[in-house]
């Protein structure tokens, strides 16, 4: 176990991937000389050279599509789209090619592609640079969508994705990169099927992922002295959702709150709420609540950005209200 940042954990994963399989290469804007917009790939150019650490032009559609093509051609590309904001420019390639080619070709092709991108708000980058489109990607059949929230997962889920024969999209919340924690570099690739209970509790289930895990755990701690024991589920895998884990927890707590940085309407939280409706309606003592981002382009000013995003204080407040309703 060594202490490292989330960014270093990603780098460690990339490094191991590149060392262990020569079909692996990394490509994206500024992954090479610059060292990655978030410094995740710093040093990799020196170790692996420009053929395997490829700086691309600003051409999201072309280089993501080229990743798909290279995967078809027998490589194991890891494509870094700098942030989810720019991934809109590559969405056609991801939806209509990466996710679709296998089924549409009658099972002839497969696309073992990893696309990594930073996501989320919180750094005062304003409306065009603060998106959370995880829910959109989680909507698309053919994709596996991951959201590592811990440093161990940042490394382990990347490595697990490498053995997948189909496209995997990995969301790294930009606020997590400086997060320090112990990482076991000897650990096997992470499980990428299951959600994980990060804190046990019996009064309410808090369901979250990615950049919101920290806030949710903080809220859960603050709820303890108020007499509410919250169970915190880190979804980890956004597609396919681990519905069983959610329902199991609710069969114990009978209450649930979903914390999701996406805009409320059409959020991933909506999907989770709907699944709980379908799978645990009779278990519920109160309606499932969602805490999401306000429905507004995320503003630059700190106090306004804070007001737009889910915060621990809001979670505490909503949970308290919810637990006050006794059935």
């Amino acid at each position: 176990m060594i202490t490292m940042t989330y960014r270093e954990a990603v780098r460690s994963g990339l490094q191991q991937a590149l060392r262990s399989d020569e079909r692996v290469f990394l490509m994206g804007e500024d992954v090479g000389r610059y060292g990655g917009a978030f410094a995740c790939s710093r040093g990799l150019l020196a170790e692996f050279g420009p053929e395997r650490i490829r700086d691309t032009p600003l051409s999201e559609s072309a280089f993501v599509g080229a990743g798909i093509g290279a995967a078809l051609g027998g490589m194991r590309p890891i494509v870094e789209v700098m942030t989810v904001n720019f991934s809109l420019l590559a969405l056609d390639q991801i939806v209509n090619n990466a996710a679709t080619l296998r089924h549409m070709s009658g099972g002839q092709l497969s696309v073992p592609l990893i696309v990594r991108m930073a996501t989320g708000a919180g750094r005062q980058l304003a409306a065009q640079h603060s998106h959370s489109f995880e829910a959109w990607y989680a909507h698309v059949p053919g994709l596996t969508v991951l959201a590592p929230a811990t440093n161990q997962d940042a490394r382990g889920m990347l490595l697990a994705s490498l053995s997948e024969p189909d496209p995997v999209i990995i969301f790294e919340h930009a606020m997590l990169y400086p997060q320090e924690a112990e990482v076991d570099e000897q650990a096997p690739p992470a499980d990428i099927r299951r959600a994980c209970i990060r804190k046990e509790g019996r009064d309410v289930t808090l369901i979250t992922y990615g950049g919101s895990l920290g806030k949710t755990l903080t809220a859960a701690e603050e709820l303890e002295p108020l007499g509410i024991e919250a169970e915190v589920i880190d979804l980890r895998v956004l597609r396919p959702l681990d519905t069983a884990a959610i329902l199991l927890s609710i069969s114990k707590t009978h209450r649930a709150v979903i914390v999701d940085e996406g805009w409320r309407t059409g959020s991933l939280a909506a999907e989770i709420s709907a699944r709980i409706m379908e799978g645990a309606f009779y278990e519920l003592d109160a309606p499932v609540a969602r805490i999401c981002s306000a429905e507004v382009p995320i503003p630059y000013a700190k106090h306004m950005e804070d007001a737009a995003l889910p915060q621990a204080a809001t979670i505490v407040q909503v949970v308290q209200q919810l637990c006050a309703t006794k059935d």
Partner: protein
Amino acid sequence: MADGKIVNLSGLSRDHAWALLRQMLLIRRIEEKSAELYTIGKIHGFLHLYIGEEAVAVGAMQALQPDDEIVSTYREHGHAIARGMSPASVMAEMYGKANGCSRGRGGSMHLFDVGLRFYGGNAIVGGGLPLAVGLGLANKLQGRTRVTACFFGDGAVDEGEFHESLNLATLWKLPVLFLCENNRYAMGTGLERHQSQTDIQAKAQAYSLRGEAVDGMDVLAVEAATTRAVEAIRAGGGPFLLEARTYRFRAHSMYDPELYRDKAEVEQWKKRCPVENFAATLRAAALLTEDDLKELEAGVVAQVAEAVAAAETGPWEPIEDLLKDVHTPAAGSTSRSNTLAEAHQASAVGQLPQRRLAAP
């Protein structure tokens, strides 16, 4: 030749000439039959015919080796056939039958054959170009001398992906042949109304790329130009933009009432029919007799009939297979990947909840 052009036939063997003609004829007849089958409700969805453009696919494929890759568009029957896909597997696909090349899931716009290294069949205009760049990159990274041939229309040249792909391929010196089939129309929009610079091959300069235009109605010219281009690519010089100037004789798709062009223009181009003119050239050069042609034609007609029969008698994919192949099951049954595929499957299937089992 009908348009009075002099063709250099020296070095053209009878066998090769016949093969070219046979393939063009086969494509022509398959397309005609498809149109007919569409009208009587055997083929559905979109159907984009290649009639008039046969010389491009047939000429270009001659220059490619079995392990080269092809990426194509929704107007790809010609490319598929010229690459060697069996008419039966194409026709069955258009019928939506499970013996179709894509199990009936793709239809006319999505022919795939991984054995022939035929990577579809892409219905998003411009969407195939980045794939070709990636296939080229894989070849380069693995030190293979394969060439990836990417077919696309003049309309695709308008899309940002054209620009991004040519830049990327040239920058990285990738072995990709960008083959633009300029049939002068993007659906109903004429070239001069969708491109400010109508000399498509000239756009190569914007990428320091080699470009050339060729008469797309002349199969030998296309073969020669493609051969040169492919040689240049294989020699390590990076990509090549080849513009084949051609014309589609039929409507854009079966939905198109063709309000946007004059019949006279179409008739003018039909005089340059690549099939008829090549046959005429061969006859003039005594490489083909009237009887030969009849025999060829008869063979082709038989092939088409076989294809239709295969499509007619082919099985439908069972509905239970609907979710099959969304994900790849892993080779080993106990592997993690397999369970991920299963997890996807399970997640995709929703059910009504059970009544509360435990007390609150």
